[in-house]
Structure formats: structure tokens, C-alpha cells
């Protein structure tokens, strides 16, 4: 059997069908001092062809969620409960070998800091060929592989000869494009982009994001963007989730979350970042540091830093509730946030 290049191009999508369902995932890291609850009760759904964003400060668990999807967590990580279903199949129940075969073929990843995702001693083309060798063993001839890789490079705007270059001969932006090309190699149904544009300058950032968006639309794949920069991913995503201390505290359509954040943390996070395209607003720093995940505070994990915290917040953990239109918030006082916002502005 050979792989036709056309079958690697586009797929039929049905935007109402879920592709990836993350269901109540709880994950802990075991360290000497105890257990770190890095991902706590996180649930969200990525539909076919949908772009989802996850934002939060560093250490909030967004990268842990990303690595969980590929089951690439370090050996001291432990899944306590939950399911991660891709096309209805629970990834957490697969054997290691089955999971290995799924990686990159079904879910590819664009890592943060593309500089270091390339092994410096091999040519870029050979590192992409490795993927084809592994996932399409015996299905593509050497020349077909080459042809396929040249088309991949072409689709991200890189000349085919660059395949014979070493990573250090690429500029930062080119390296990131090459990473995207490699991510497309098996035409996966989902790409996870973990801080895809950090460490690149603003113009290149913009180019890369546009490129990703175009490719996503063309090939009909879903993307999960992960970033600490809410303004960057607001432009390219359909849905947006805000994470704090391992919990998903707000989730909904991007336009809704971005314009009317209901969780105080999401609200403060938005206020702390400038935006060119979004509504004009007064910048305010987000005070305090993320909570200690070894000993998370009782009640809402955000309560020690929350300007609106009440007694209830320190005692009971708020559930993630739908407040209409698929907009979900985990806050006892979400109805009061807009009013409190005004108080805060004065």
C-alpha cells in the first residue's frame, strides 16, 4: 500500500462533531515533598476544525494539559482519573505502543522554543523523514518522501532545498515554519501549538500565526493553542479557556470570553496585557504569585489573590457552570464581576 499525497491534504469536517473530549482529567506529579496537583478536574471539548486556546500564567498547568494529551508526561506524573477521548477512543486506556503509534499521526505538536526542538546534528529533512519512516513504514519510496517533504515545506513558504540544511542554518522564524511543516507531515487531525511564537519578534509572530490559521482552514484540522499571551491567541481561536493553578476557571467562545470575562482571574489577566485590536482599557498588573500547588488553598484556588473574594470563596470550591451560550465560569461571584469591575476602576 502506498500513501497518496492527496489523502494527506484535506479532510471532511463536521464542526458539530467533537474531535477531542477532555473529561474530568486529574493529574498529579509525585515529588519528594508530596503530590503536586498540576491538572485538576479539567474538561473541555475540541470540535472538528475548531481552534481552541488555553491561557494562563506560567505554572498554571497548561503545558501539563498539552503533554497529557500526548501522554508525554515525565515518569513521576500520575493520572488520577478522567478520560481523554480522541474520536471517541480513550487515549489513557491505550497501551504504550498503541499510544506511540498515535503520536504525530493523529496529534502533532509544535513546541515552545522551536530553536531547541531540532536535533542539532541531523539535517532538517532527515528529521522529518524520520516521522514518515516511523508512521508510513514501507508505504512511501525515498523519492515520494522527498516529494512530500518538499510540498510540506512549500506549504509553509520554505524552499525545498532547505531540507538539506542543518537546524542552525535556519533563522528562528524559519525554524518554527519548519516545525509546522513537520507537524503537518502525517496530516494529523489535531495540532497542539505550545507557545508557538514565543521568542520570535512581533512581525514573525504574526506571520506564523496567520500561516497556522490558513493551513488549519485548508486542511481541516483542529488546533489547540497554548499561550500566556491572551491577546495573541484571541485572534486565532474560536474558543478560549483560562486556566489557573491546574484548574480551568473559564471557558467559552473567544469573542465572549475576551469581551466579557466573568472570572476575576481572567478579567485581571486581560487587564494586565495590552491589546492592539481589542477594546481600549487601563492596564493593571496582576498582583501576587501563582499558588503553591503542593498545598493549594481551600475553596477557590484564586481566593488569596482575588480582589472580590468573599467568605464562601475560601470555604467552597466553585464548580464550572454554564452561564449561557456555552460560556462557563467557575466563580461564586461571577454575576458581580462586571459591577465590581467598575468599583475597581474608580
Amino acid at each position, binding site marked *: 500500500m502506498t500513501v497518496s499525497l492527496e489523502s494527506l491534504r484535506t479532510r471532511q469536517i463536521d464542526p458539530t462533531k467533537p474531535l477531542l473530549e477532555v473529561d474530568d482529567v486529574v493529574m498529579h506529579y509525585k515529588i519528594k515533598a508530596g503530590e503536586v496537583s498540576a491538572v485538576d478536574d479539567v474538561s473541555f471539548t475540541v470540535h472538528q476544525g475548531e481552534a481552541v486556546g488555553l491561557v494562563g500564567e506560567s505554572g498554571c498547568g497548561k503545558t501539563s494539559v498539552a503533554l497529557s494529551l500526548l501522554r508525554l508526561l*515525565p*515518569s*513521576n506524573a500520575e493520572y488520577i482519573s478522567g478520560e481523554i477521548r480522541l474520536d471517541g477512543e480513550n487515549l489513557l486506556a491505550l497501551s504504550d505502543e498503541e499510544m506511540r503509534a498515535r503520536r504525530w499521526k493523529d496529534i502533532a505538536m509544535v513546541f515552545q522554543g522551536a530553536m531547541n526542538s531540532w536535533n542539532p546534528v541531523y539535517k532538517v529533512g532527515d528529521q522529518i523523514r524520520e516521522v514518515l519512516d516511523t508512521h508510513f513504514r514501507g508505504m512511501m519510496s525515498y523519492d515520494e518522501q522527498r516529494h512530500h517533504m518538499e510540498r510540506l515545506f512549500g506549504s509553509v513558504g520554505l524552499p525545498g532545498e532547505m531540507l538539506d540544511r542543518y537546524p542552525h542554518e535556519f533563522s528562528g522564524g524559519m525554524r518554527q515554519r519548519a516545525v509546522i511543516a513537520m507537524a503537518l507531515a502525517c496530516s494529523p487531525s489535531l495540532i497542539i501549538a505550545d507557545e508557538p511564537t514565543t521568542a520570535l519578534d512581533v512581525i514573525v509572530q504574526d506571520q506564523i500565526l496567520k500561516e497556522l490559521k490558513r493551513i488549519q482552514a485548508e486542511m481541516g484540522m483542529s488546533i489547540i493553542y497554548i499561550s500566556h499571551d491572551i491577546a495573541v491567541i484571541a485572534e486565532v481561536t474560536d474558543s478560549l479557556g483560562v486556566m489557573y493553578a491546574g484548574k480551568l476557571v473559564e471557558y467559552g467562545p473567544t469573542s465572549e470570553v475576551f469581551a466579557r470575562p466573568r472570572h476575576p482571574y481572567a478579567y485581571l489577566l486581560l487587564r494586565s496585557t495590552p491589546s492592539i485590536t481589542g477594546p481600549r482599557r487601563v492596564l493593571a498588573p496582576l498582583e501576587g504569585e501563582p499558588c503553591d500547588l503542593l498545598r493549594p488553598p481551600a475553596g477557590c484556588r484564586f481566593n488569596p489573590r482575588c480582589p472580590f473574594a468573599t467568605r464562601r470563596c475560601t470555604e467552597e470550591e466553585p464548580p464550572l457552570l454554564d452561564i449561557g451560550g456555552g460560556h462557563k465560569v467557575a466563580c461564586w461571584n461571577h454575576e458581580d464581576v462586571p459591577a465590581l469591575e467598575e468599583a475597581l476602576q474608580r
Partner: protein
Amino acid sequence: MSINERTTKHEVSRATGDDLARELATRALADTPIWRIRLRLFRRSFARNWALFRDNKLGLVGLAMIAIFAVMAIIHPILMATVWDPAIYDPVVGYDSVAVEVTVVEEVTDPISEMEYQEARLRFGPLTSLGDTVTVRLQPAPPTLAGDYPHFLGTDPQGRDIFSQLLYSTRAAFLLGAVAALTTVLFATTVGAIAAYYGGWIDGGLMRFADLILLMPLLPLLIVLSAAFSINMVMLGLLIGVLNGFGGTAIVLKSQALAIKVKAYIDAARVAGGGDWHVIFRHIVPNVLPLTFLFMMFGVTEAIAIEATLSFFGLLNVPMTWGVMINTAQTQGYLLSGTDFWWLLFPAGLAVSFLAFAFFIVGRGMDEVINPRLRAR
């Protein structure tokens, strides 16, 4: 005095400069005296590093072994002053003849036993007959635990107490290790920091010199030198230290110092009016210290091995060391005595090996503290 001029030089944490800056930034308004901040930082970084080191069981074993050797080194003079008679137990000039009861061959069966019988008659008089028990004074003598002068590890071919020699040599080994390690670090940090700070022809000259020293094979060179001059322990320590300090260690420390030279607080110190020497010795050198501690540990290991090797060849002018002990066993023809005269070969050989082993694993433990990637996950 500016803040930068007062940075401590006792820090063990690699991020010293950054830590201090952060600490000062957060408490800029508080009027805590700077030495107290410094002390607190030192205590904190020490506690942090110690906690990391403690995770490495092997490193702790190494520390324990070094402690045992230290006790050995300390008790020798005490024993000599109190329990041990210097005439018998002195490691170099002591002498004790040990009487051992030996049975003359039971019956003559072959030429060898015939020869042994004749020899016994020669030594103990013609009245000696088969099966008699005679008293012989023999050297080297096996360990004796009782009697007037117990020898826990027996005596050597010249009637000297092996245990006393072993303890005495421990002190020499520590002395040598300390001298060699300190000299290495002193020269290497100075050379490395100066080369990194000034760059240019100073750097080029020092590094070419380091290349030349790297070209010199250490052991043959020391063999030549110890054949040419009468070298004692301290001189050997200095020699090893200088050769290492100007050679490989200097190159490694230079690259480390280069990484520190580009940090912001170095610029700050210069802008604040710190002179070259001030910046080198109060800012760069303190920050390469963690790495130098590491090299000190490995330096001790190397120095111990080199001394023992040179002594083993009988090239050093030292009265007694572990190497001399093995050399004695070798030159008196006990080289392949194996388990028959185990007390001549094993105590000294194992002592050299174990002390080097101990310093090496402590060094590895420190390496894990400095280099997070090596730590167990």
C-alpha cells in the same frame, strides 16, 4: 559604599549575584544591615544546597568515609602519646619482633619436607625432632590482637606496625590532598577569571600556556622531577596544584567565568566604579566558587593517586605513606603474596582506593547540586 562593592564572597549558590540583587530589590526600603542579608542568603543557599546534596545517598556515604579517615588521622598522634610505645609503634623507625609458635614438619615424606626438617635442625639446634613446637621470631608477622604489643594489622617485613603506618599515612594523604586542591583552585580561579575578564592577548597567552601544560604528560613529568629533586609531600602537592591550576582546570573555569562576565551585575559593579581587581575577585571569583569546590574534590582524588603511584615506584622523599607501604611489600618480594600476606597489600591499597573513592563521590554529589540535569527525577 555601593551595594555592589559589598557582595559576599562566601556564597555557595551559583546564582549568588542574582539572589542578592533580588533580595535587595524586595527590601530596598528596609534598613536591615547588609551583612545580615548576606548571612541570611548564605544560610539559605547553604540549606538549599545541602538539601539537594542529601538526596544523593552516595555523596553522604562519601562524607561518612572521609569522616572515618579524618578520625584515623586524628587518633594516630593521640595513640602515640598515650597507649603506643614509640619504640615499637613508630610508623617509620619502630620495631617489634613477634614470637610465633611453629610446628616442625610431622614426618619426612618428600625432598621438600626433608629440606624443611634439616633447616629447622640448623636453626634450632640438632636436638630438634619431628613434630616439635618451636618459637620463631618472624617478620612480617600476621595480625595479633592480644599480647604485650598487639598489632591489629600485623607488622611489615621490617617489624613495623602496619596499623600505625596506616593511621600515620592518612594524615599525610589529607595534607597532600588539601595542598594540591587548594593550590589548583587558587591558580585556576585566578587564571580563569583574569583570562575571561581581560580577554585579548592576556587570555590568548594564558590559554596557550594551558595548552602547553596539557601537552605535558603529568605522571612521566612528575617521575622526572621526583628523580631530579628530592620531593616531599608539600612540594608534591604544590607541583600537582600548579600544573593542574594552569592547565585543564583553568580552561574550564575560564569558560565558567565568561558566562558570569556577561551578567548584568558585573556591569553594575563596573558602572558603580569597581576597579578591575575588585570586579574579578569580589564578583567573578565568588561566583565560580561552586565549580571550584567540585574541582577541589576531584583534585584531591587525583593527588592521592599520583602520590601513591610515585611512592610505589620509590621516587618520593617521604618516610611513610600508603604508597611507601605497598612499595615496601613489593621491594621485599611480597608483590604476589595475595592472601598469604594480605596485611602487607590490602590495608594500604584499599586505603588509597577508598579515600580517593570518597572524595570522588562527594564531588559527584556536588556536581548534581550544581548541574540540575544530573539529579534523580
